[in-house]
């Protein structure tokens, strides 16, 4: 039993955090959100530093790591507020394609940053839409990869300029749909929920950090507002939510890597806990900032909106909750059959 992350996963997360710190100079994040070229430059820089290789097998130019390492990356992408479908393109899509057979060329292209694939979630919603090259879509028990040109995207209204979402409304013929097995759809859903859980923890932690720094310096009544328990204690509750969600996310990722039966419950727990914690983070973060946090000019809105986006995407909390209820009911039914001991 060892909860400590493997060294390569730790290095990956730390490296990505430093890289994002260098890339996102002041104003850089806003530029990437508002300007497509800036967004593509940021994505290219991340690819050049290996962010798209984590889950691609080493034989295809990837690092061949698992989800325990991938969630460390996803957390940093969420913390930095990187716009667009980077979770999909770097982590979720290669993991889903890895379930099928015959996707070697696509996986190699993804690792090299030449193919930007997004994944439709259980609502049939994708991020980036026309900006992507390919879309993975669930069709019944199967998964199919489409070229983006074969898909029609209907804009879904959102507040989050950095996370444009679309309903996949009509399709031409699929580029490829080979080799997916029964159960792969549920597995693919777990990949999406894992990546978004970790990104929510990262985004929530960023909100907590920026809010703590703000209330420590903002003075009213002659002292920092962050010295009042009425301000401090709700922020501690934010910390509690995030700090107790994070190990669940990591344990869920590991359970997926070793393919344990409890991965179903763990991943649903992870997304559910991360979404709840992130919601509390942006809500308290906004309240603690006062009016400045409500402005477009102040950066809090970027993460507030992203928490809304990531919470609903790839494993809406209600669907995770339903999964958890199903597991609990099955356990209860099993216990009712077994003798009480």
């Amino acid at each position, binding site marked *: *039993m*060892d*909860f*400590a*992350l*493997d060294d390569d*996963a730790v290095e990956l997360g730390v490296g990505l955090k430093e890289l994002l710190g260098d890339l996102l100079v002041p104003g850089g994040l806003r530029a990437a959100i508002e300007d497509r070229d800036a967004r593509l430059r940021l994505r290219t820089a991340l690819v050049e530093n290996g962010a798209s290789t984590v889950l691609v097998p080493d034989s295809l130019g990837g690092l061949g790591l698992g989800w*325990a390492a991938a969630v460390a990356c996803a957390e940093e992408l969420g913390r930095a507020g990187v716009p667009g479908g980077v979770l999909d393109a770097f982590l979720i899509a290669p993991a889903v394609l890895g379930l099928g057979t015959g996707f070697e060329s696509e996986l190699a292209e993804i690792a090299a940053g030449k193919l930007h694939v997004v994944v439709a979630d259980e609502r049939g919603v994708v991020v980036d839409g026309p900006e992507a090259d390919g879309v993975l879509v669930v069709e019944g028990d199967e998964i199919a990869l489409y070229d983006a040109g074969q898909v029609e995207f209907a804009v879904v209204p959102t507040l989050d300029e950095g996370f444009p979402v679309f309903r996949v409304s009509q399709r031409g013929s699929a580029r490829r749909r080979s080799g997916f097995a029964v159960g792969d759809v549920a597995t693919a859903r777990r990949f999406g929920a894992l990546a978004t859980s970790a990104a929510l923890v990262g985004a929530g932690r960023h909100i*907590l950090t920026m809010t*703590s*720094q703000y*209330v*420590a310096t903002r003075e009213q009544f002659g*002292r*920092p507002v*962050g*010295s*009042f*328990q009425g301000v*401090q*204690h709700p*922020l*501690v*509750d934010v*910390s*509690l939510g995030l*700090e*107790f*969600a*994070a*190990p*669940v996310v*990591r*344990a869920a990722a*590991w*359970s997926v890597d*070793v393919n344990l039966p409890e991965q179903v419950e763990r991943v649903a*727990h992870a997304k*559910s*806990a991360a979404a709840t914690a992130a919601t509390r983070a942006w809500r308290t973060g906004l309240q603690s900032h006062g009016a400045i946090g409500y402005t477009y000019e102040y950066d809090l809105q970027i993460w507030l909106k992203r928490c809304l986006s990531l919470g609903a995407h790839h494993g809406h909390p209600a669907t995770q909750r339903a999964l*958890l*209820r199903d597991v*609990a*009911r099955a*356990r*209860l*039914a099993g*216990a*009712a059959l077994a003798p*009480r001991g």
Partner: protein
Amino acid sequence: MDLRLTPEQDAFLESARAWLAAHTPAGGHAPPGSAEDVAASRAWDRALFDAGWSVLTWPKRYGGRDATPMEWILFEQAYHEAHAPYRLSANGISLLAPTVLEFGTEAQKEEILRPMARGDVLWAQAWSEPEAGSDLAALKSRATPVPGGFRLDGRKTWSSHSASADMAFGLFRTGGQSGRHRALTYILLPLDAPGIAIEPIRRLDRLASFSEITFTNVFVPESAVLGEVGRGWSVAMATTGSERGFSLRSPGRFTAAADRLERLLTPEIVDAFPDLADRVLDVRLDAEAYRLHVLQSVSKIALGTFGPGDASLEKLHWSELEVRLNVLALELLALQPDADADTRIWLESFVAALPGTIWGGTSEIQRNIVAQRVLDLPRSY
């Protein structure tokens, strides 16, 4: 990272389960209310000690096994699965022993640890005073230097199990009141010393499980000091660090309680009252999150990155979870008034859970600690 037990850990867990299955006495979940109960509790500590389970993580020379934190977690898991008795020795083992191991002289370690682990000598804490609760550094009980030792005067209160204990550990003022926490000394004393009066206090369920202790001209020798004179605060904070940390609250306690809670759900209740089933699910998930957080803490301790903020976060989580769990159990039992023979045990468990958010630093104090040490916020008002 690997959350599976190693074959050695698995064997360890099974050996703990086997021993507990063969030796765990029935009942004993409430703090002892009679002399017979105290004797039974001491006998249980003795049985645990003789079989090598009493104080796993202590050094072998003091009666422990030099066990790893993970082995301790596994033993506790088995202990709570077996619903084994409340241990009267817990205060000493969890709060005092880590401090003795860190600050005690060799003579103190030899004298104190083994009898504590065997249930021969029961220890009570003497921290709070009528005017010093959350503001512990305001305490007024004095230790006045006299030839050969100190004279103790003052009052301590909310002292758990002191009516059945043999010894007490606590903080006394050896300097001026204005010195606050810089003028305190950590003192160990026998509760039958002349000048000590113990007045039991009844909990809300009428069980007299804690007391007020009055000291009038009580002599203790110099050897009663743990650590240095005037350094009692930092010595005591090491103790409250263990009190707040995972040493007192193993995850097995909550995962086992969540399992027992889930057994109060019937298919009929789940169908008729889905909100109750949802709350039981939340308790289960929060107990599991606590378990995973503690496993993370074990690895942080190994890496040297476990801080006081982490201990406070854990105390906030488990103490509030335990109250929620027990309130929910009472709600479920009230729905099925004659369905469960364990109602009395749940009532006891409920009463025992309530002060968890108060003792060892209230939830408000814990939140102040997290605010300052984790979030880097200014001192609280």
